[in-house]
Structure formats: structure tokens, C-alpha cells
């Protein structure tokens, strides 16, 4: 049940393995990004790691105007996971472009994340972000599970999703990833919609809608009642969805959900992801992403791959062991 640990077996550095991947047209120095909402605007991590050693990072989802989130409590711990109901609190696109981006060191790959309540608002935001040279690509958050009039409808309804992707696609020629909601019956259908409407790639999964209760107070823990489940608990679900989507579409997939170490990350690559994002694990260990990239290279070497890119979809069938 589960394999042996991946990292730490080889002392040799990853120099001989080509760690580079291209995600939806964005060249990355390695396959490990950090996930939106778990890496702030990047600068918060400067004390802990050299940001240029990341494949890249996806900034906190933006709205056109600055936005306050939900009242506390906003988070809860659950078995091997956590709930959040932040509600896309963010500095707004203007502050992002004028203050946050310029504060980042040269050479950091930044993917902006866009959120909105209507396709037109997404498109307006995407158009503004597109103009900035420091933005390497755009991820649209079609999946935020806790804003009532927001993402959940787009990511859960194929027609709404198609309209959203088509509208945003017209607004930018930059690499465009669509981050899907996991709260759907058939993820492959949603992936196909994105592909058909011209998305360059898909990110999955966002947090899964869930709930926690404080039995002593007899109340939901979160002020919002519902929140998004993230962390190791959801990894097997995320892995399944990445695998299903990879069977259904040809555009690249960025795998997210419960990744804590290189072994977890490799699972997503083998199931068809081109790159991965580290989320909740950044809270436990703000240096995690860099170690994971290194561990993937070690794995590739031990298994005779000269390019990390070749791990994508390299899963063998369960028979014939």
C-alpha cells in the first residue's frame, strides 16, 4: 500500500535530468508551481526560499476591485486536511499589477488567477492582467467553492463554463489555464468544454466543498457554514480527476490537491499532469515546493528518465506486474 519514499536516496544533484516542462505554452524551469491562495503574492515566501527556484507560482485569485473576505472563523482542521472559506479576499487587480508584481525578483514565473461573478468581469480583469509583461500566464478560477454567486456555478455547469472560457479566451492571447471545480459528476466533460473553447490548459482540482461542526457549540465551525477541503485527504480524489481528464483531452493539465512531497507529485505526473501545484503544504513547510522539484528530478533519474517531461502520462497498466 503506497510505495517507498522517493527522495533522499540519491546524493547526486538533479543536474543530469532535464527538469524543464512547458505548461500551456509557459516554459517552466521545473514542474512545481505553488497554488493560488496558498502562496500569497509571492513576497511572503521570500524569507524562506529563492522564488526563482520554483517552476512558478499562481498568485491569489484577483477581482477587479479589492475585496474583503468572510468573517472569522475562516478555517478549520479536518482529518489530514483543512477547510477554508476565505471568499477571495484580495488586493484587487490594480494593487496587484502596481505593487505586488514589481516587488517580485526578476525571473520568477507568475501566473495570475482571475475570479469574477460574470464572464464579462473575468474578461475585463484578464484583459488588464494580459497587458503586464511580468504575467507569464493566466489561470481562471472557475471553481471557488464558497462564494455563493461566484465560481461554483461556472465550474459546475458545462454551458456556463463554455461561455466563461470563450469570453475570456477572446480577451487574451496569453497562456490560459482554467481551474476546474471538483464538485461535479463528470470532470472529463468539463475538461472537454475547456479544450473546445480554446483553453491552453486545465488546472485541477480546487478545494472540495465540505463542512465541519463544533459539537460543543453545536454550530458549524466556519462562519460561512461550507468551505473548501484541501490537503492530503483529497489527494486520491484529485489524482482520479487528473487521470480522468487526461484520458479525455489533449491540452496539458496542472495537477493540484494534497501534494506534500515528491512522491505525491510524481503520482500526478504519471497520471497525465504536465506540472503540479503545491497548496496547503506551503503552510506546513514554506520551503516545500523547492524540495519537491528536487525530489521529482531524483525520481526521474532513478527510474531512467532523462527529462521530467517524460514522466507525464508514464503510468503503466495495472496488469502484467
Amino acid at each position, binding site marked *: 500500500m503506497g510505495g517507498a519514499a522517493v527522495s533522499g536516496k540519491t546524493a547526486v544533484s538533479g543536474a543530469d535530468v532535464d527538469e524543464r516542462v512547458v505548461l500551456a505554452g509557459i516554459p517552466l524551469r521545473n514542474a512545481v508551481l505553488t497554488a493560488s*491562495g*496558498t*502562496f*500569497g503574492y509571492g*513576497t*511572503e*515566501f*521570500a*524569507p*524562506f526560499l529563492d522564488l526563482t527556484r520554483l517552476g512558478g507560482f499562481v498568485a*491569489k485569485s484577483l477581482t477587479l476591485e*479589492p475585496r*474583503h*473576505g468572510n*468573517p*472569522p*472563523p*475562516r*478555517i*478549520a*482542521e479536518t*482529518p*489530514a*486536511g*483543512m477547510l*477554508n472559506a*476565505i471568499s477571495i*479576499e*484580495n*488586493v484587487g487587480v490594480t494593487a496587484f499589477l502596481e*505593487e505586488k508584481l514589481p516587488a517580485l525578483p526578476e525571473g520568477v514565473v507568475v501566473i495570475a488567477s482571475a475570479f469574477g461573478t460574470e464572464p464579462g468581469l473575468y474578461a475585463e480583469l484578464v484583459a488588464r492582467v494580459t497587458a503586464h509583461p511580468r504575467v507569464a500566464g493566466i489561470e481562471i478560477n472557475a471553481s471557488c467553492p464558497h462564494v455563493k454567486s461566484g465560481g461554483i456555478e461556472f465550474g459546475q455547469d458545462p454551458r456556463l463554463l463554455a461561455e466563461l472560457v470563450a469570453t475570456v479566451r477572446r480577451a487574451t492571447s496569453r497562456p490560459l489555464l482554467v481551474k476546474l471545480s471538483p464538485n461535479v459528476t463528470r470532470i472529463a466533460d468539463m475538461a472537454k468544454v475547456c479544450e473546445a473553447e480554446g483553453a491552453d490548459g486545465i488546472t485541477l482540482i480546487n478545494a472540495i466543498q465540505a463542512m465541519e461542526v463544533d459539537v460543543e457549540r453545536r454550530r458549524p465551525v466556519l*462562519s460561512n457554514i461550507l468551505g473548501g477541503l484541501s*490537503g*492530503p*485527504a483529497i489527494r486520491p480524489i484529485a489524482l482520479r480527476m487528473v487521470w480522468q481528464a487526461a484520458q479525455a483531452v489533449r491540452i496539458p493539465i496542472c495537477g493540484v490537491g494534497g501534494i*506534500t*512531497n515528491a512522491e505525491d507529485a510524481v503520482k500526478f505526473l504519471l497520471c497525465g499532469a504536465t506540472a503540479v501545484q503545491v497548496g*496547503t503544504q*506551503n*503552510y*506546513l*513547510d*514554506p*520551503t516545500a515546493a523547492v524540495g519537491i522539484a528536487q525530489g521529482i528530478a531524483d525520481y526521474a533519474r532513478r527510474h531512467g528518465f532523462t527529462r521530467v517531461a517524460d514522466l507525464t502520462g508514464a503510468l503503466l497498466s495495472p496488469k502484467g506486474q
Partner: protein
Amino acid sequence: MSANHGHAFPHPPTRSRARVLANLPEGHGRRLRLAVPDWPGSQPGQFLMLGAGAEGGAVRRDPLLPRPMAVYRELGGRGDAADCAAGERVIEVLFRVVGRGTALLADLREAERVPLVGPLGRGFAQVEADPSTPDPNATPGPASGPAILVGGGTGIASLYEWARVLAARGRAVAVLLGARSAGDLLGWLDFEALGVGLIGTTEDGSAGVKGLVTGPLADRLRESVGATVYAVGPTPMMRACAEIAAAHGARCYVSLENPMACGFGVCLGCAAPRRAGGFALVCRTGPVFPAQEIDWAGLP
């Protein structure tokens, strides 16, 4: 929303694997002495994030999140219980077991390792010098009148270094520590050793004055001019302290203890509602705040 404070990190925090030097009973709580590689030193009122339990033979993903704990004491390059490797510095944390994370911290044994991120947040001196919302009633910058430090329960742990620093600076310092009973007056002997004015209260009268710590606070404020109150403890206690301070025209700072996932301003989970509207991140703008900034009714 996360305000981007230039001074958010007087010493940039580090991530390390702290080594347990000792895990001792401390009344009804525990005193954890840690040797921390590359610990840069902290400001009074700062905190750290401790993994929920030892790094054992295998990674365990439940409980998942690290736990915020005040830096109780800095012992510098050397602990009582063991010598320190080069680059390690010794700090102490005081805590009570209230749930799974603290139960696992109570299980820590000598020589085990526990993941640590810190120091984090803005301490008393920093917030005083640069409050996120300037107090309209007070001159910004360090206070100079008498300092009244009020600690309730484990909130006591956030005050020791501040009492020490203020006393060293020559400020008149009174420390009022309140708890349920004698065994909850964590760190009492350390505070005594500081030689500052020290009053203890217990709800059950098992030590010090019987009653709540707010009683002696009001007494003190009646006697003092230009005092500043620094209160750390359960939310109702801090709120009461803030009201008493306001009634006496004294400045008041509090240190909030919202649940946290990251501790360094990226999960946005620790938001506290501001009286002026919107939210402040406890881990980044706080945990110390001017009391009048807080929308007390909006705290959970």
C-alpha cells in the same frame, strides 16, 4: 486584507527542525525548551508555528496544521538542560493541552525534532511604533509612562519577554497574571525573578487574590497617569481590559489568538474584524493590536 508592512519581519523568519531539550510539567501546563537551528531572535510578543507533534519514523498527515505558540523566553545560546550545537539558540514555549495538537506537543520527548517556523508577527514594540491604524487619542511611538501587563491563562506566555525588556529599559512595570487556579499561573517564578511588580489572581483563590485579573487592573489604572495596558488572554478578558483601559483614558494593546493555518500571511485564515471595517491578519499585522482597532463583537 493583508497590509504589506515593511517592518512585518524585524528578523526574517526561518523554517527549521527544532530539537527538544526538555518538556517539563509547568503547573497544569507544559514548558517546552527547544534548540532551534538558525533562530534569528525574536521581539517580545512574536510567535512561532510548531508542528503538531514530533517528526517520528514516518510522516503522519493528521493532525495536519502547525500550532501557533508565543515565544515565551529566549535563553540565548545555551539551555539549562543540554548544550547547544553551533547556530542553535534556545527558546521556551509554555502551553496547555486543549486539543490534539497540544496533546501531541505534550508527548514530545528529549532529542525529538519538531518542525518550526518563526519568529512571526509583530511584537509590542513594533506595533506601538507603527500601529496599523494610528490611535487618534495618542502620540504614536513608544510609550513612556507606566506599563501594566495583564496576562490571562496561556496568554501569560506572550508577556514575559516584554516585561523583561520594559524593565531593562527602566519603564515602571506592573505584571498582573490571572488564571483559574494556582496551577494555571504559568511562568510565575520566572516573572518573580524579573523583580517587577507582580500580582496574581485566581478564580478559585488557590493563589494570589481571589477573582478576575480585571479587578487589580482597574485599581492600578486609578493610581497611574499615562499608563499603557498590554493585555493577552482569552478574548472576553482582553475585551474587558480594553474597556477598563479606555474608561481610564489609558492606551491598550492586546494580542489575539485566532486559529491559524500558516502564520505568515498567506492563508488569510486568521482574519480579525476591524472596528473601521474589513479585516486584519492576526499573524501579520498582529498578533498585537491597539485594542480600539478590534471589532470585538465580530470575533468568534
